[in-house]
């Protein structure tokens, strides 16, 4: 019995003398592996011009569709990126991203990579949609104005056309509009645009596809 006690205490004492494994997160953070896929970074060339040309290939490659790019034409006197085209808006919905890295692979200019940052929790849902200003490498002469994510972009829950006087969202209104006099009956074959060889159609194909 004494023997077991000694053995147990010995184990306890050796553990007490070892360096602790615990990291005081978030004050302390361990370095990640070099190829870790964390939050994205938009890079710049050495002269400060953005690498991103707004080609939307990352958005096309993204399996979950969480990237929103809106391109625009460069002003040759004051270009944002080399060439004719740049990304006016660039947004990623980090809540939807699965950190697969396809976007980085698709990018023709190596503008986007997945960086080391992994502490991405936020108190507000909207903040998890990161805009170009947050994603871009900082650069002394090229500060980006920080604005909110676009209402139609990567994190959009609104499906609105610009409404100077916003009320209920048009999507809701659209559905409501069709049910004023009760639900419309399913269109019958032979009806306006419904082919006769289809037995029944339950939803007019005209609805928004998003």
């Amino acid at each position: 019995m004494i023997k077991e006690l000694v053995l147990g205490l010995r184990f306890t004492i050796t553990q007490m003398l070892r360096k602790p494994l615990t990291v005081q997160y978030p004050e302390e953070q361990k370095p990640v592996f070099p190829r870790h896929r964390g939050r994205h970074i938009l890079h710049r060339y050495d002269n400060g011009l953005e690498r991103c040309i707004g080609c939307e290939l990352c958005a096309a490659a993204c399996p979950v569709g969480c990237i929103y790019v809106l391109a625009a034409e460069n002003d040759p006197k004051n270009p944002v990126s080399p060439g004719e085209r740049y990304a006016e808006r660039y947004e990623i919905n980090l809540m939807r991203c699965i950190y697969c890295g396809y976007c980085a692979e698709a990018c023709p200019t190596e503008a986007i990579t997945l960086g080391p940052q992994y502490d991405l929790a936020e108190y507000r849902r909207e903040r998890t949609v990161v805009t170009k200003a947050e994603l871009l490498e900082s650069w002394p002469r090229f500060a980006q104005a920080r604005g909110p994510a676009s209402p139609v972009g990567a994190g959009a829950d609104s499906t609105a056309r610009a409404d100077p006087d916003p009320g209920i969202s048009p999507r809701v209104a659209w559905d409501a509009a069709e049910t004023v006099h009760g639900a419309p009956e399913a269109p019958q074959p032979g009806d306006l645009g419904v082919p006769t060889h289809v037995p029944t159609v339950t939803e007019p194909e005209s609805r928004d596809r998003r």
Partner: protein
Amino acid sequence: MAQKPPTQPDDGHVAVSIDGHETRVPKGTLVLDAAAGLGIHIPIYCAHPKMEPVAVCRMCLVHIERFPKPQPACATVVADGMAVTTDSAEVTKIREGMLEFLLLNHPLDCPVCDRGGECDLQDFTFRYGPSVSRFPITEKVHFNKAVPLSEHIELDQERCILCWRCVRYYDEITGEKEIVLEQRGVQTLVTTFNEQPLRSSFQGNLPEVCPVGALTHRQYRFVSRPWDLQRTAGVCPECSYGCNLNVDSRDFEIRRFASRDNPLVEDMWLCDRGRYSFPKWNSTERVRRPAVRPRAGRARDTAVGEAIAAAANELRAVIDAHSPSAIGVMGSAESTNEELFLLQRLARDVIGTRNIDHQLGSFDGITSEEHALGIAEIEECDALVVLGVEPEEEAPVLTLRLFKAQHKRGRRVHRVARDADPAGVVKAMGATTLTGVIADETNREHAVLVATALARKGAVRRMTVTRGVNGRGAKDLGVLPNVLPGYRAAPPGGKNGREILEAAAAGAIHALLITGPNAALERAGELLDRALQRAESVIVVETRPGKVASAATVLIPGHAIFEKLGTVTNIEGRVQRVRPALPPAAQTPSDTRVLAALAAELGAKGWERSDPMSVNRALREAVPAYAEAGSGGRALWTAERVA
């Protein structure tokens, strides 16, 4: 050539085999089309379905048995017993070679190219091309990028593959000859004569004709990728010709109109007025809230149900105090058939007034005869008489059809003054068995005289270019004081648009019911102002803020043409469907529901089923020609049906 099998009679067809698949096609078919019929794809650049073959790009070379050299499929006519091979190692090598050659000096800037994603050069390189080039990328010859050819069209000289399609488009389709190729060899460039900007009214077709990203729209520059666009089949809202188009939208805004080939209507060519008209449908200047603004009392925004109830009360008050004919109803040539049908039923059956119109002009003596000539039938007429410049100004794509009739089919096109002397026209015509007479709404009486005079020479068919996208539908469905749906005679005494406004200004008409954006109404100017001021109640279902909306005593937001379901009818009576491409800007029920709810408030029975589909069903029951037209067919009127 192989012997023709003796069992096959000569039926104008020939037997060919392509990659071992046998088929019989009509004589004169191109190898390209015969292969397409079998589902065999042959890559093409210079060939275009609407143009004559030139065989300059050599992309379509195929092997044909017993021919010493490969032949262009786009310019070789099938012969009986021909054996074509498109999948041999030889053809594969030719294709790889052609693509490597085309990409020799190509900038390969697909990531910034507006055509990326819908580019034939990209697609065919991906499908048939070599995976690497033997030419160093650093030695490419460069040319200018983003050269403006006009305010609409931009040319990237490096991306051009010299297929000649743009040059031939101007030669063969519009006849304007505005683009040429200059220089020779690797220095060949597409350009305009003397660097003049393009002046054609059909430039917008160039980027669609160009197989690559050399010619692009300025208005679509870097706007979107094709895979981000949400495509809705639609009808051009600018005129009554009814050109089919695709509405491409992104983020709930229309980003471009693209052609949607309907050989019977626009034959895939759109005019610039229509093609570049899309920004106005993205406008945020819209009527968004229902409002009640009694003449005596406080104006306020309300819920749509309340507004409809208020409208019914005002109408009932006028009917009680005066009579139903103290109410004037104005429809619009920009509404769908379903809305117009409901509106005229509301006016005639529920309110009980005969004062209904959609325009200011008079349409006395209107018959379906005015619209007997179909668009595609223009090519079948021996001779065509166009009265004045208005028809072609109103419906510009008509010009291209006339050009095709004249130059491809050898028809005679006479453009005469809008009030040309009928006897003179007849004299100038020569012999003809079928003549088309094309006029617009303002000289339709004169067209009758010309047609009557011409009738001595042979059959005559008339076309009247109506105003407004659904000007024809408004007439077919009886939104006129003198005809009921289907051109049946209406009981007399109804006032036309101008008379309604005059009566309202004079205090004889006490209430106006106005639906839809109505350009014709706005042209009335000062008369409209007086009418709107004097009328006791002005009930308006309108999309745009403006004179009419601000004078409304009851205002209900309407849905614009790209926000609703329905049909519109073009000048030849083709009933075509419109579909919602955008969510409605106003959060109210669709216009058909508003009209039906108003009728229900006025005590009408049987108006419950008021979604556009149900209204369409009712419309087809009431107007048999529309039932026969279905969706996409022509509503044709025979004499007995009109009677």
